[in-house]
């Protein structure tokens, strides 16, 4: 098997997120990964990449604009 495409590797790496991959393709990718260091490393890197994106997004609320505090005071829950 030639190296899988990046899309194929992404779908393989994200199977936990419900990415759809048919059984035969998955079997081919698994077989290929068994003998290809570069693609094994690529899958591992893609998973780490996902974690880096999640960390960056997840910490966004720590850097909110200064105006937010003022906004929160204006919209206390009692106003609902």
């Amino acid at each position: 098997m030639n190296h899988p495409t990046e899309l194929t590797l992404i779908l393989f790496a994200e199977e936990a997120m419900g990415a759809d991959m048919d059984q035969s393709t998955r079997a081919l990718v698994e077989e290929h990964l068994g003998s290809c260091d570069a693609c094994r490393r690529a899958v591992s890197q893609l998973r780490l990449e996902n974690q880096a994106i999640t960390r960056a997004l997840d910490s966004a609320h720590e850097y909110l604009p200064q105006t937010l505090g003022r906004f929160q005071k204006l919209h206390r829950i009692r106003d609902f």
Partner: protein
Amino acid sequence: MADSAAFEILYQEYYPRVFALCRFLLPSNDCAEDAAQETFTRAYKAFGQYTPSRPFWQWIAAIAHRHCVDQLRMRGRWHAFDDDGQPTIDQLEAPDPVSVDALITLEDHQRLRGAIERLPEKYRVPLVLAYLANLTYDDIAQLLDIKQSHVGVLLLRAKQRLRHELNANASGGLK
């Protein structure tokens, strides 16, 4: 309806995260503030349906992203998600580990967030739904009314753009 005092604690705790989620999905701070406020109003009214066995963040994030996607749809910013054509799978090679490294090793979350914020909406929205709201491919496909196979393509394009921007900066663009 929720107990006001108890809900205020949740509001204080989760408002920043809800605002951040809305801000990644919507085009301005004003839109995000309105959406975050609307999210808590809806959550307050529907609090009786919340089951404590489910993480509160998961529950309120679902209210928030549904509302934001509705807002995008109402603002006519919707057609974009499905106009990426079919994936040119055969033209895509396996990822270059060096370029992927640029994203993984980036300790500066703010720079990565900046790059995410600059992504076109059609790439940014699915990326945020996948990696901040933790939706599955199927959930994203249903929410954006696109095929499940297209979700992977949009996420791939988003990551390729992020790598390209971060690599460009790393190779001399940053002053």
